[in-house]
């Protein structure tokens, strides 16, 4: 399969780059893998990965749900948009560090503070994307649904969600990556476990193989989720698009 080929190419590129740059500047995949295996055998990798995944899942779900709802609302109602816009721009452009520090200051060095801070960081990008999606909705289909007296749930599932799907997919993919990046900062600044915590340690020791081993473990999880769940689902959901080839 092409995807596997490309993946192999990626590894090969890395290997060659490592060989050229020298293992101090970039450790080869084998070195990183060895570290990852050692960490996995000690159980530390799974512990930290688990903690991070739990935080990512919670913060992601929370921010996608609220962000999509707000974005939809702001895209549809001019009033909501006018009212929400300054807040949105502020939230968008507040540095992650600041939000996390403030959250920790207010809510203590707690799990709740961390997750809330992460969700708040991701929220506005979901809002911005879904707002565009809501603006692009086809009024002709709204009218159809109204004429045939579709109940709310049916409108949501059969009229709105399919139209918003590309926006949701974009917000989810880039959002997941954002959440993950911010989780790291939150863990770095004030959590006693998680990948970000370990990355902080690796960074202090300036241990690049360790840094890469932990960083890539999450990418590996996402790669698997994409291949096993998301992409088959997407293929099914977009069968109706008739693109040549």
């Amino acid at each position: 399969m092409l995807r596997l080929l490309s993946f192999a190419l990626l590894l090969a590129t890395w290997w060659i780059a490592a060989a050229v740059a020298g293992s101090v500047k970039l450790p080869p995949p084998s070195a990183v893998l060895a570290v990852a295996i050692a960490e996995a055998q000690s159980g530390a990798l799974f512990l930290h990965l688990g903690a991070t995944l739990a935080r990512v899942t919670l913060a992601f779900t929370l921010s996608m749900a609220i962000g999509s709802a707000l974005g939809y609302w702001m895209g549809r109602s001019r009033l909501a948009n006018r009212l929400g816009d300054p807040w949105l721009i502020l939230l968008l452009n507040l540095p992650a560090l600041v939000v996390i520090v403030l959250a920790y200051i207010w809510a203590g060095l707690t799990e709740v503070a961390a997750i809330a801070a992460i969700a708040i960081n991701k929220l506005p990008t979901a809002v911005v994307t879904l707002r565009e999606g809501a603006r692009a909705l086809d009024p002709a289909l709204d009218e159809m649904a109204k004429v045939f007296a579709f109940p709310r749930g049916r409108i949501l599932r059969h009229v709105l969600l399919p139209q918003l799907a590309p926006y949701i997919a974009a917000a989810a993919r880039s959002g997941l990556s954002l959440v993950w990046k911010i989780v790291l900062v939150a863990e770095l600044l004030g959590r006693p476990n998680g990948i970000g915590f370990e990355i902080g340690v690796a960074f202090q020791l300036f241990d690049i193989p360790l840094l890469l081993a932990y960083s890539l473990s999450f990418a590996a999880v996402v790669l698997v989720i994409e291949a096993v769940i998301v992409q088959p689902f997407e293929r099914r959901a977009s069968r109706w698009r008739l693109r040549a080839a």
Partner: protein
Amino acid sequence: MQLDVDISSKSYTSANGKRQQVIAGMTFTLRRGEVGVVVGPSGCGKSTMLRILAGLDSDYQGKVSQPAGARLAMVFQEPRLLPWRSVEDNVRLAAPDVAEDRLSAIFAVLELEGHRSHFPGELSLGLARRAALARAFAVEPDFLILDEPLASLDDALAARLREEIATLVASRPMITLLVTHSMDDAVRLGDRIFLLSSRPARLLHTVPIAVPRAQRSNELIAAIKADLARLDFSVS
């Protein structure tokens, strides 16, 4: 149960800021069992009127009292199917309670049996329009609005579907409003024909046809069409 229409004016503001009157005056009443047919030049405001009657547009001057509690079905001028749902799902979503045999019957009449599982993008325009008709038929409406339902179909099929509409109308006491450019359709299906002026649309003539639909001979139809042609010419 009846439909009272009294639209004194409807205007659009277009994106370039200009305001344009589209409906200048339209008053009529349709009773249960009646078929009203609206005929008017292209772009005069027919679809605009239908949108008002369907409750999709409330930005007009006047008053429309929709039949209370009536189940509405509409065939829009474009098919307006959900592209991500199969033909069958499109129909079932609008009419979740439709019985399987009735659905089969509708699909058979519209020659859509082979297309049940197709997505709208895989249909020809004529097929898509028929799917939209199937959706409206399946709803078993009390108030049926049809915006040029038989356009883009070949003559033979159009004639058959016209009969089908007549049968449907006869089978249930419903209010039907049909927009068409075909005088033939108008005279064969209508109980009253509303002739509109060009934009802004004004109700020019209301032509009642007293003879019941089933008893209209080809000669009668030709005679009425000739009458209408004279009327029509006198205004446009």
